[in-house]
């Protein structure tokens, strides 16, 4: 394989590997911007993956599968919202419970569907003109539609947070819910909304695995991507643009292993598979060690809101 071809292959794989993480990270970013920690991402992705898969097989339509994944992820988000916003439960444990429940439930539901092929997975859709640009073309513009949509999502989210009133309200609720409340913003309701939206995006991230990149269903197929997404939000300093870069970075590390092996590098593939996880720890430590890391978090993240608390 020529050197350039090798790089193109890695970078292209980076995008594919990074996309599910990107969706999940964006979902988590939204939820955390509203002040709620959601550690159930892994479970929500799995539920999304299995729901999307099942719906796609039953209906023969992957778009319906995607919709099902969004609804399922949203439902999980709703549960988390009820527990953490209304019942003021410990956000960490609630998220964990959902991660475990999601893992178990998805395994249970998906068992009957293992091995069945998806009729019409999301195939790559090379963009005219853009797809023919040397180097950048194959790296960026010959992917499936969900990849392109993810870019749209990043842009939309960026715009939403920067230039819209609703985006301003979202950030206010995560920074200082007391301030938002005293100005008449409905903290509980808005938190519910964004936790659910976050869950929906996690579902989409999972569906990407089962309907596009694999495409298949395997128990626990996310293999920790959900947790990496949570770390990614911190690494991204809660900014959508950085999340995009980070997701592809992680995706790249992920893909690197596979490609190095194919290139005949004599390092056990197990070590290469460890890279994303070790990378996550390293990156997280670096971000936290620099003062900026800790300060970028939404001010009220992780704290339940109680108006009459004296």
């Amino acid at each position: 394989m020529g050197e350039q071809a090798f790089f193109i292959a890695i970078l292209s794989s980076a995008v594919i590997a990074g996309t599910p993480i990107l969706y999940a990270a964006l979902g988590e970013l939204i939820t955390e911007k509203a002040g709620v920690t959601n550690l159930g991402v892994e479970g929500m992705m799995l539920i999304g993956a299995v729901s999307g898969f099942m719906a796609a097989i039953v209906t023969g339509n992957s778009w319906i599968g995607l919709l099902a994944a969004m609804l399922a992820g949203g439902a999980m988000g709703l549960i988390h919202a009820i527990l953490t916003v209304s019942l003021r439960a410990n956000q960490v444990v609630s998220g964990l419970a959902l991660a475990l429940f999601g893992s178990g439930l998805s395994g249970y539901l998906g068992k009957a569907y293992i091995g069945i092929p998806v009729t019409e997975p999301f195939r790559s859709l090379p963009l005219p003109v853009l797809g023919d640009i040397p180097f950048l073309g194959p790296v960026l513009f010959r992917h499936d539609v969900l990849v392109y949509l993810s870019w749209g999502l990043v842009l939309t989210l960026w715009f939403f947070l920067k230039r819209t009133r609703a985006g301003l309200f979202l950030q206010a609720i995560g920074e200082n819910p007391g301030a938002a409340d005293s100005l008449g913003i409905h903290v509980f309701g808005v938190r519910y909304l964004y936790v659910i939206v976050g869950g929906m995006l996690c579902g989409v991230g999972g569906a990407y695995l089962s309907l596009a990149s694999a495409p298949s269903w395997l128990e626990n197929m996310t293999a920790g991507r959900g947790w990496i997404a949570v770390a990614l939000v911190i690494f991204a300093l809660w900014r959508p643009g950085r999340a995009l870069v980070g997701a592809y970075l992680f995706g790249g590390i992920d893909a690197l292993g596979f490609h190095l092996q194919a290139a005949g590098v004599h390092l056990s593939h197990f070590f290469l598979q460890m890279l994303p996880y070790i990378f996550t720890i390293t990156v997280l430590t670096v971000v936290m060690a620099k003062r900026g890391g800790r300060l970028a978090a939404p001010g009220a993240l992780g704290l339940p809101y109680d108006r009459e608390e004296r």
Partner: protein
Amino acid sequence: MAMTVKFEKRLNPSVAMNVAVPLLSVLAAFLLGAVFLTLTDRDPVEVYETMFKGALGSRYGLSETIVKAIPLMLCALGISAAFRMQLWNIGAEGQFYMGAFAASALPLKFPDLPAILMLPGMLVLGCLAGGLWGLVPAVLRARWKVNEIITTLMLNYVAILWVDYLVYGPWKDPKGFNFPLSAKFSATAALPTFGDSRIHVGLLLAVLLAILFWIVFEKSRWGYEIKVIGSSEQAARYAGMDIRANVYKVMLLSGAVCGLAGMAEVSGIVGRLQPNLSPGYGYTAIIVAWISKLNPAAILVVAILFGALQVGGFFVQTTGVPASVASMLQGAVLFFVVGGEFLTKYRIVLSRKEVV
């Protein structure tokens, strides 16, 4: 006159609720499970019956339940130590694997060691490896406030891959027909069992540890420090306690006990190092610890319940229901417990208000 529902914070967490909530949660989880079972065209009553009969209805079933409960007990005890100080050790699974790996090193590299050295040696190595695996996230957390949930979790995957690497590679049994298994351990490396059952001395270790933990955490000076730090860091600082040192000590302990669980599994049950040593004990143990409210005695009991669920799940596979029904039920119990905690912290007050 209007009726309003208000949530009033309780001054004392309700003791009655503390017991009722876990019980009701188990019930609720089974109900929820029944819903999913029905949705997938299965008879919940039949499924649950098979599960219970399988797990608790026969000598073999009971024995298996205990076998599955032992690693849960040990991991949950380890986890509870960390949770007492609000250190969220989600890395029990990885610490388990590292303990298993380190313990295996001894029989694989020195198969002719006399029994008196072998087992204790494996124990020490298992604890050491698990402890160190827990220390790394502890350092990151104490020094740079790096979220220990993520770091311990990431290390889980690394540990599992490490063991995979070993059994697919350098430690693969040359006589094993190319299966990813290490060589079988000699008899000296096997934890003794009770009679001819599969229940190994790990059970004793778990019970001993539970007693020890109860003494240490409820009665000792160190336990007291942990309690204060976990309750109020501010008060701990006011009292002059060293928070950082305790973070290290607690995570070392927590990891060591989970490493011990790995050693016990590999020595008492499996007899070799292989992939998939754990069907998620480290994660299930978190649920066990939380439901037990970190109480060592309760942990032993709840672990048996969850062990029964695990075995039941295995049995129910014969009727075509996937074993993951067990982990689904386990997860459901946890989130009902989590939601139910609301009832222990808040009182529901129905009041009539004069409408102005």
